[in-house]
């Protein structure tokens, strides 16, 4: 268990994971549930335990659409999407580089891609 990592996630997410009462409404509401190896409630639970390594190595990190349905519906105000975001950021920083570089973008650019998606991608895949 990496205590520093957990503290870092607590700070960057701004979420108090101990508020979770294990109702699972986040996972129940998640549209990407089937794509994920670890589900929103597991993110919260595992971060609380400090069991972060499996999360960092899981593709689940990048399956979250950040649709905020879980944030909206969580009865305790835990905001799982922010936890996932914080874990993702940890992963990005840990590897020392961005998953996406500005230079790569023109090649990847699809005319139909909405502006919002580019911004979202930057937010997700860069420091």
């Amino acid at each position, binding site marked *: 268990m990496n205590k520093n990592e957990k503290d870092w996630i607590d700070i960057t997410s701004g979420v108090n994971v101990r*508020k979770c*009462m*294990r*109702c*699972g*409404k*986040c*996972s*129940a*509401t*998640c549209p990407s*549930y*089937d794509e994920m190896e670890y*589900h929103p*409630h*597991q993110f919260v639970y595992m971060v609380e335990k400090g069991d972060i390594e499996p999360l960092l190595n899981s593709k689940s990190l990048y399956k979250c659409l950040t649709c905020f*349905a879980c944030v909206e*519906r969580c*009865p*305790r*105000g835990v905001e799982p999407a922010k936890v996932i975001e914080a874990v993702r950021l940890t992963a990005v920083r840990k590897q020392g580089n961005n998953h996406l570089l500005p230079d790569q973008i023109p090649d990847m650019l699809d005319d139909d891609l909405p502006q919002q998606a580019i911004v979202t991608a930057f937010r997700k895949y860069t420091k």
Partner: protein
Amino acid sequence: MQRIGVFVCHCGTNIAATVDVKAVAEALSHEPGVVVSQDYQYMCSESGQELVKNAIKEHGLTGVVICSCSPRMHENTFRKAAASAGLNPYLVEIANIREQCSWIHKDIASATDKAIILGKAAVAKVHLNAPLTAGESPVVKRALVIGGGIAGIQTALDIAEAGFDVDIVEKEPTIGGKMAQIDKTFPTLDCAACILTPKMVEASQNEHITIHSFSEVSDVKGFVGNFTVTIKKKARYVDETKCTGCGLCTEKCPMKKVPNEFNMGLDNRTAVYIPFAQAVPKVATIDPNYCMMLKNGKCGVCSKVCSVGAIDYKQTDKFIEQKYGAIVVATGFNPIKLDKYDEFAYSCCPDVVTSLELERLMNAAGPNGGTLLRPSDKTHPHTIVFVQCVGSRCDDEKGKPYCSKICCMYTAKHAMLIREKYPDTEVYVFYIDVRTPGKNFDEFYRRAVEQYNVHYIKGMVGKVTPKADGKIDVQASDLLANEQLHINADMVVLAAAIEPDKTARPLATMLTTQMDTNDFFTEAHPKLRPVESATAGIFLSGACQGPKDIPETVAQASAAAAKAIGLLCKNSITCNPCVAHSDELMCNGCSACEKVCPYGAITYQDKEFRMPDRSTAIRRVASVNPAVCQGCGACTVACPSGAMDLNGFSNSQIMAEVDAICK
């Protein structure tokens, strides 16, 4: 000139080991006004008290200072001793030289010095003590119960049983409350109506009970033992004394499209109506929002068919004033509104219902005559999903932070009843935790699982989506299996959180009782005085104090009744004499004191005064009701004029203590 006696207790070695008690007695003997200063082994003992009593008589003492243990320990002991020797008990002061001196200090010199100073402070204070007499205030031997649900009914019956008159004020046309709407009760599954309606009848027939139905409390004045309450009897346009409850008017009324609140709006009633067959009083009421006669003067059918001439379209609200010695609040609860929970589709899908609606759907007197049918197409549901904790245990402003307590059990009841009656129906219950503390409660829940094969799934429903084929997609997570489920349901039942009735907050203001942030009434002490409010003479019964099931409600109702009876039994109440009082000549009537008084003990009066220049003037001045004041002293500091002072802890007394300590 004061004649003060000082009595220094050794408390065995408890005091004497660290405080030189002889030196304390010697030092205090030189204080002004002190005529006798003695020490003794155990001042609180029989012989110690004798010593004090004899000194009072022998020296004609006008004040007594006991240097001993904490006043919280023996203040009353010594006050009683003084009283038995003919000295007013409030002329006794205690200097706490044990808990606050000998026990905390090791050095004899400094502990002795401190004991002397504490003794001097007590002497300085006792110089200014005034003899106080506990006042008495008479008790009106009649109780008011606000709310006619099971809590109110039970309280009223118990008080009436003790022989006191009691009035029930119920805002609906009938008493019965939420319990009347419930089908069966857990954990015994007996019919709610079968156990409630006899009590309703009993209440209506008890000579000591007066039921004011379709009425509200509009004003409360007075204080414990002597409340004056104004009750507003809302116009029901039917003469209660004439109506026989035959129901002919309700049959003939042409206005038949009024949503029936008793059935949670699941069917309709007429504009003139009797809420349900066993209503008490069984009297019709005309709904002025729908009655065509009242709205535009055209119709009058009910008046024509009524053989006893009970219909009175000209009736108006009436106000009656009544005096009470005690008031019991039993305003109950309501399920919260679910319109903010879009994810459960409650507002857009008729087949998503609340648990209370399900009660009506399953009730023999309900809209479907007891057959469980989907409200949308009146077909039999084959898959029913129950969702727990809807709005309960919620951190956000949509819901309530507390556990509503009753949902786990009634959901188990519903699941069981459905599986019993319709074995072909699959029932799923999504829960966060199943909470079943209570006699036979967990056994009941386990029966639902084990015997009735109800599918209990740990996890919450995330989304409810009505589909084109009339089915409902319920997306939920099974946390134990770690999978997301999609259930193709026919009906969804939401266990909505419960909240205090909306009428409770304004009522609390009228009663000057405290409420918590959720609008539940606050009990005087959460452990030791659970059925009393902090305001004397106001008692709490049922769910107005917190979520409760029926057995708990009835238990609390009887407890509140017992407390009320305890009060009503007395002919008068002895008041704490250490209360605030206002010097009317100083008071400028600014109202600051009134605003900080937690008990509503302060009122204002216009009084005529002879002014220093010999003229007379009408001035607005505060007066404190000593029966209501509890003696906190908040008003004394709010008063800029220094007109408010507190008996036993007066400004001058406290300042004398300050002076003595700082000397």
